[in-house]
């Protein structure tokens, strides 16, 4: 189910110098804004939920998800080095589950943890905002990682597709077409946040929690299964 060598190769590739810098930029920005809000004294529950919902969950989490999810497998398939994993007596499910675990771990570090810290910096423990958003982020991250890891096994344009989904579908389309929001990882995360935060803050999600939970499970389990199937039949042709 989990192979430490696959994990080591994956996180070393993921946290290579350039990608690590990109991964640091967004959380750093979030924390900087949080500090600014706190220092200028405008921090209240409303500002905090706006920042964590409007920037963190809406932009930071999907972007980190795209970079990490596709980065966990896409480059190896692109340049063909995945052949060194595939030419081993390793179950394909082990490769995918290991990579997924690493991706979730890395998004935890670069998305959930900064969200928690930003929340704490702005409003401390007030209304459990910080914890609620952090948990929402973790759950959304799992879905994003699965989704983008899957896209990484399907398409060489995984990053583009991921960005289009994250920015166009979730952010833009969702604000015009209400139906699009039902199929939005961000909204599923918000449904969970809504349940977790104190009653004093208003968090709106387009999806009810049970629906969100079912959709999250379907995406995560189905996406993982399909990624394994894709890897089983991955052909390394096109060299000639």
């Amino acid at each position: 189910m989990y192979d430490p060598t696959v994990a080591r190769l994956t996180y070393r590739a993921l946290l290579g110098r350039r990608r690590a810098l990109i991964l640091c930029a967004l959380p750093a920005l979030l924390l900087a804004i949080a500090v600014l809000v706190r220092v200028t004294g405008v921090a209240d529950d409303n500002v905090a939920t706006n920042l964590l919902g409007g920037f963190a969950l809406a932009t930071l989490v999907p972007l980190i998800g795209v970079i990490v999810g596709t980065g966990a497998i896409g480059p190896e398939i692109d340049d063909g080095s995945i052949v060194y994993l595939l030419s081993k007596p390793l179950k394909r499910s082990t490769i995918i589950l290991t990579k997924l675990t690493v991706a979730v771990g890395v998004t935890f570090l670069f998305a959930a943890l900064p969200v928690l810290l930003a929340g704490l910096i702005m409003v401390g423990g007030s209304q459990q905002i910080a914890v609620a958003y952090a948990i929402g982020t973790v759950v959304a991250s799992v879905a994003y990682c699965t989704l983008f890891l899957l896209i990484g096994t399907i398409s060489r344009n995984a990053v583009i597709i991921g960005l289009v989904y994250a920015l166009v579908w979730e952010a833009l389309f969702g604000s015009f077409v209400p139906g699009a929001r039902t199929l939005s990882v961000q909204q599923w995360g918000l449904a969970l946040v809504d349940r977790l935060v104190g009653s004093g803050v208003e968090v709106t999600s387009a999806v009810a929690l049970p629906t969100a939970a079912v959709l999250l499970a379907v995406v995560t389990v189905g996406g993982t299964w399909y990624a394994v199937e894709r890897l089983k039949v991955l052909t390394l042709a096109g060299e000639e």
Partner: protein
Amino acid sequence: MTTIRIDHASRWFGNVVAVNDVTFDVGPGVTGLLGPNGAGKSTLINLMAGFLAPSTGSVTLDDRPIWKNEQVYREIGLVPEREAMYDFLTGQEFVLANAELHGLSDPGAATARALATVEMEYAADRRINTYSKGMRQRVKMASALVHEPSVLLLDEPFNGMDPRQRMQLMELLRRMGEDGRTVLFSSHILEEVEQLAAHIEVIVAGRHAASGDFRRIRRLMTDRPHRYLVRSSDDRALAAALIADASTTGIELDFTERALRVQAVDFGRFTQELPRIARSHGIRLLTVSPSDESLESVFSYLVSA
């Protein structure tokens, strides 16, 4: 003793047939897979390495299917043609990772052994992205050997190697063949293949064109009709004199090129007779050049043979 059996295997991509009804066995010893670029060598190796499903037919390792059967990798070592490796690792880390992925009981010792076999210990602690092409090739080789497989598949292993590295690798492959391992390598260079492989499979345009030892393949190649482009002080007179000789079967006067196109059947005799005939008719030869020495034309002759 491990045998890879390719049985009426074809593979197509959309409308393009890359491998067309190929049947042969690869047994212990060194086998060369010879063919021009784009002939389907890599596709065949990918079929044998389990990275492509045959569209029809079967590819098996001692009667077990290779496709979708990751257990066969306990016995297969693969040296891919592509350069990409985990470049951020050192050579040692890379080979060690391969040893661990194979689940070897002592990956550290296996790594040291494999690096010694390819004589790469001296650069084992350098990152792969600082390696030359030949060094990369040798580390790839070490990663393929680390679990001591009974089958070794190499896709164009000599590409980009300097003559010394080439000799070393040939020596290594020869030794592995003598140990009773099944070694198959692809190449588009006849000289490379005949220096190393006792047995040669020739593949052209996806089809299995010839099979046998290098003497047989050599003979097929030199006995074929040769075409020459000849320019002289009097093309028409030379044409008349040449066609009278048994070494030629056809001559064409090419007005645009202002030259003769000569088809010779007896290669040895033609090259001796041409200057003699020209001299005795008082004709000066200006150009004599083989017009179809490209490997592709040699191969295409083999296909029709």
